[in-house]
């Protein structure tokens, strides 16, 4: 055995799967062969090549590139009782996410090369989904002084953002964008003008008025986006709007793309799967930032996904323990967990015929990979063997108690969804198999 070690390359073949590759437009039944960490062959009958390969009978199932989740919070370092690289990695694996990018709002924040290196080391040790990180745009996420963006990027930071806070000061944002442009770096913004949002916690309208909750006008989003678009025009930097949720902001981004600005954006499942009525009787699990919006805004998000204005769907995974959510509404933390539900909730867009299957999967794989300039998100020979085998139609009930994530804060409990991950593979290693 020892003598043959060099040749003992891990070989895995998926037989008779419905192969789905948004990058090439492939949607056909066939085999896919993995050798080592890479995809060795795609399509057709590969049984001849598959001798001494582990075989997965994938008949009736879909095989696609692993999900690339461009916005998660993993709480490590600093709040490992809510989530960690490991628990988040298990949640990602169960959700079909093979690559995820963490926000820098940890404790300490990712504003220093040492923290980027720490995260990379932890991800290597844990060896589940691939973990990348953004770095803070400003030191301490305080919105004043630029971080060492060049060095942080050289050490692996994929983009720059102050996480769940907007870079509020226009001059600071201009310098962040201008400096980022010098190194061709990506800047991501939380789209909310904080001086207008004030102490608000839900979207302005009848529901906020009835509940007596402090409200944020939806204009707080478009004001920040339009300001930033002007700054992008001045600087030319690559700019990404995170979790867009309003019709107005989506329209502005649509126009900016027409004008040729280097702008992209994503949204998250709550913004197309829920509207503000989910708050009900002060459900803190439905407290998000940006807040859940009106039905008209939800429809606009779906339209933005349909027409390509919105480039990507991210889980916006924001784990919180009970102590952070079992509080009066205004004291409760913002955000919900999403890694284990992003695929089935996104598939609702397909089942409801808003998008075709390849078009939807592109938003979860190839598009975010391209924005992040990562060589993943495609079923191509030589590409990393990051794969998800799933049944797009299988029905199941979301039960947060079953989540692998340490935190259970999801407003989707008992929601009937369709589409279940059967197996998740990262670099040729199976990191998840459905066992029930």
């Amino acid at each position, binding site marked *: 055995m020892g003598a043959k070690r060099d040749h003992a390359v891990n070989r895995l073949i998926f037989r008779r799967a419905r192969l789905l590759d948004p990058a090439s437009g492939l949607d056909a039944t066939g085999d896919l062969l993995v050798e080592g960490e890479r995809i060795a062959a795609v399509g057709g009958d590969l049984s001849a090549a598959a001798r001494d390969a582990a075989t997965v009978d994938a008949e009736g199932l879909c095989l696609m590139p692993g999900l690339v989740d461009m916005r998660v919070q993993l709480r490590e370092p600093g709040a490992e009782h809510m989530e960690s690289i490991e628990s988040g990695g298990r949640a990602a694996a169960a959700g079909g996410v093979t690559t995820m990018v963490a926000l820098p709002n940890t404790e300490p924040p990712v504003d220093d090369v040492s923290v980027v290196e720490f995260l990379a080391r932890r991800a290597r040790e844990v060896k589940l989904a691939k973990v990348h990180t953004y770095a803070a745009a400003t030191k301490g996420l305080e919105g004043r002084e630029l971080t060492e963006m060049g060095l942080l990027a050289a050490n692996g930071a994929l983009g720059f953002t102050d996480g769940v806070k907007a870079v509020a000061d226009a001059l600071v944002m201009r310098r962040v964008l201008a400096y980022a442009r010098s190194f061709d770096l990506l800047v991501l913004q939380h789209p909310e003008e904080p001086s207008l949002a004030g102490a608000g916690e839900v979207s*302005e*309208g*009848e529901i*906020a*008025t*009835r*509940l*007596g*909750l*402090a*409200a944020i*006008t939806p204009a707080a989003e478009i004001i920040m986006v339009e300001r930033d678009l002007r700054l992008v025009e001045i600087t030319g930097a690559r700019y990404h709007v995170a979790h867009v949720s309003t019709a107005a902001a989506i329209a502005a981004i649509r126009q900016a793309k027409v004008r040729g600005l280097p702008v992209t954006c994503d949204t998250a499942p709550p913004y197309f799967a829920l509207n503000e009525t989910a708050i009900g*009787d*002060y459900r803190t699990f439905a407290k998000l930032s940006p807040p859940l919006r009106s039905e008209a805004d939800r429809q606009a998000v779906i339209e933005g996904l349909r027409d390509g204005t919105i480039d990507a769907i991210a889980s916006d995974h924001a784990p919180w323990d009970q*102590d952070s959510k*079992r*509080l*009066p*509404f*205004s*004291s409760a933390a913002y955000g919900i967990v999403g890694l284990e539900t992003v695929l089935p909730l996104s598939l609702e867009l397909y089942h409801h015929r808003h998008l075709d299957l390849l078009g939807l999967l592109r938003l979860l794989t190839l598009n975010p990979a391209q924005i992040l300039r990562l060589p993943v998100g495609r079923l191509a020979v030589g590409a990393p063997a990051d794969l998800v085998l799933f049944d797009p139609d299988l029905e199941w009930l979301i039960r947060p108690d079953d989540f692998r994530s340490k935190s259970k804060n999801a407003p989707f409990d008992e929601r009937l969804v369709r589409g279940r991950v059967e197996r998740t593979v990262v670099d040729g290693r199976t990191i998840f198999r459905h066992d029930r």
Partner: protein
Amino acid sequence: MHRGAPEAPFRHRHLLGIEGLSPDDINHVLDLADGYVELNRQAEKKRGLLRGRTIINCFFENSTRTRTSFEVAGKRLGGDVINMSVSASSMVKGETLIDTAMTLNAMHPDVLVVRHPESGAVHLLSEKVDCAVVNAGDGSHEHPTQALLDALTIRRRKGRLGGLTVAICGDVLHSRVARSNIALLNTMGARVRVVAPRTLLPAEIERLGVEVFHDMARGLAGVDIVMMLRLQSERMHGSFVPSTREYFHFFGLDYDKLRLAKPDALIMHPGPMNRGVEIGSEVADDIDRSLIRHQVEMGVAVRMACLEILTRDLGNGPPVP
């Protein structure tokens, strides 16, 4: 399911808000309270209805008037009333609202009367305890006993609620009193107006069933009741209105503005008043027009009625949550 006697009204376990109460529920409280008004005017005021029952007034926000009113109400009915001021003690030590609820629950109270600065907090607390909960004001959400006492005050003077036109004036944005009154008056068939500068009105307030005015002259024209709201001091100087002087000039109640209402229009205020800010002293103290002191009196009677209703045996069938 077998149903014997006609269903008793008010089959709610808690009183968390006016929202969700029927006209029968409201009339039932008011009818019962009417009787207590008479009792309270006698020399011998004590009843034994709540003997052996424990009522905890749990106030996470300072209040003298409401707390005292509940305390008097509970004691007049013979209950043991304990006052707890939580703002200063446990919240500072990091105890959560749910911890506090569990602690109080373990003492087996029969009624918890709760005031909290955050909207929805009383609702949250009510889910964690076994006893009845009365919302004595939660954030900018509801203050149901205030709306009930206002309704009793109006009904005793005007003989009815339905068909009246009521103008609620001032800081509607932050007012739980306004929300509860809007719900109650609409339920009882009154017409409700709100009058305020736009900075003090929440978005889509008209969806709650009110006519919106930004000018007192129009807003008060032909109304039966003028209900003034308190303007919190932190909102007076530039943040929501430019100054108390300007506010009083345009939105404060004086005889000039009151003249536009019906000749027999009555004035109300939930207290405590800011004299010279939202209401002029001469109007506030006009014994023919101002019901402000009656409101305080009705407050005790209404709270007695609420305590009675929430502690009585619900009989057959489960309570409505």
